């Protein structure tokens, strides 16, 4: 086992927060980032079958216990916050649509979202304000954080369950766009789904 790999392993093991390859390289006396990345991958490989895994979440690396051992460790350490159903949905909408405004979240859910729900998600550190949308009213927009990826065991947003299919089937597009496409693209099919015919679609 080479020295850089040992150093990377020890540093991540002792670290209180997940670290990027860049932060590790800087910490380890400006080691080349490429070498650090290689060391990370090699160490992660060593741990693949062990009780501890080295994982990458949103470009940051950390050690965690193997998921299949959850039943052994869970008893004493159930510390995960129970999210209300509303908070769960809002979180999913932000993750799959980010950056997204509160009005957009509400339009998908069909109900007003209480400010408390967003507060809970921000307090948990999973959602952050990502600026304002440059449209009239300049609404605040929200996005997920690296901690969100960490907590839910996702390497990146591409790992969100089913996001590729949702995108491919247009289910992440705004309704008006989807509607125009549906009506413009294939009138026949659109009619079939709504039971009666109309030529009035503008």
């Amino acid at each position, binding site marked *: 086992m080479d020295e850089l790999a040992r150093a990377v392993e020890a*540093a991540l*093991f*002792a*670290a*209180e927060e997940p670290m990027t390859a860049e932060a590790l390289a800087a*910490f380890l006396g400006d080691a080349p980032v490429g070498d650090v990345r290689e060391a990370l991958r090699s160490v992660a490989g060593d741990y693949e079958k062990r009780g501890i*895994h080295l994982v990458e979440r949103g470009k940051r690396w950390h*050690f*965690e*216990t*193997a*998921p299949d051992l*959850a039943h052994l*460790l*869970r008893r004493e*350490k*159930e*510390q*995960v916050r129970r*999210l*209300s*159903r*509303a908070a*769960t*949905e809002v*979180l*999913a*909408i932000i*993750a*799959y649509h980010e950056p997204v405004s509160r009005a957009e979240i509400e339009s*998908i*859910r*069909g*109900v*007003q979202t*209480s400010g408390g729900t967003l507060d809970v998600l921000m307090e948990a550190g999973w959602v952050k304000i990502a600026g304002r949308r440059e449209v009239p009213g300049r609404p605040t927009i929200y996005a997920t954080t690296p901690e969100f990826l960490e*907590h*839910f*065991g*996702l390497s990146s947003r591409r790992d*969100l*369950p*089913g*996001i590729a299919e*949702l995108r491919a089937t247009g*289910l992440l597009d705004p*309704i008006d766009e*989807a*509607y125009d496409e*549906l*009506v413009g693209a294939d009138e026949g099919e*659109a009619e079939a*789904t*709504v*039971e*009666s*015919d*109309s030529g*009035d*679609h503008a």
Partner: protein
Amino acid sequence: MTSDGLLFADPTGATPDEWDEVASEASVDENALYLELDGWEGPLDLLLDLARRQKVDLRSISILALVDQYLDYIDRAGALKLELAADYLVMAAWLAYLKSAMLLPKEEQEDPSPEELALKLQLRLQRLGAMRDAAARLMGGDRIGRDVFLRGSPEGLEIARKNLWQCDQFALIEAYGRVKARTAPAIHMVRERPVMTLESALDRVSNMLGVTLEWMELRDFLPPHAEPRLKRSALASSFVAALELARLGKAELQQEDTFGPLHLRRVPA
């Protein structure tokens, strides 16, 4: 549409997953229905669940049948004298309108057409359904603190900063020179200079004011051929003298604008 969540569940504490049993035709225990303010939210939610109970793809769902079910549900709930949230009724009214529009002959339809509204409703239900599935899958992942655990007590990484101070001999000696120079006794000299005292200015101004009742500019009171430094002193003293005379009620002051000429005249006794 509504700011408060609504939960229709049975009093034994049914979870949202048991909703089907509560609302489905077969197993409704009507007396068990009640409202609770958490978990379940608006009408779109309810519509989505009704749609799902048809066990068909949302894309091929019959909006008409869905509308019927919703209205039927609200009817029954109304019969139970439930205090339904206004939004449920707003949605019911809207759906009733949509239903009637869909049943009308085409030529009497308005714009937007009921088909358009129905299709959009369907698209919304699909999107909400997709997000609800996604949320469930997200929550089912390996979550930290539930499925995977972080190190119990990490030592932490520490970077101790150490300062390496730099200074050279010249800077040191120069600094001492600076201190010495700064604290060497300084000699202050005030030279004699021509001044007009306040007393003489007061005499001069009040005497000159006695001659006329006209407004006079302050500068007219200054000694005409004085050297510049005496002039400055005389101006300052005369100004103070003018203020003093005004205070005593012997003169009036007037200035048209800021930094403009200052005028004064005698106040007749």
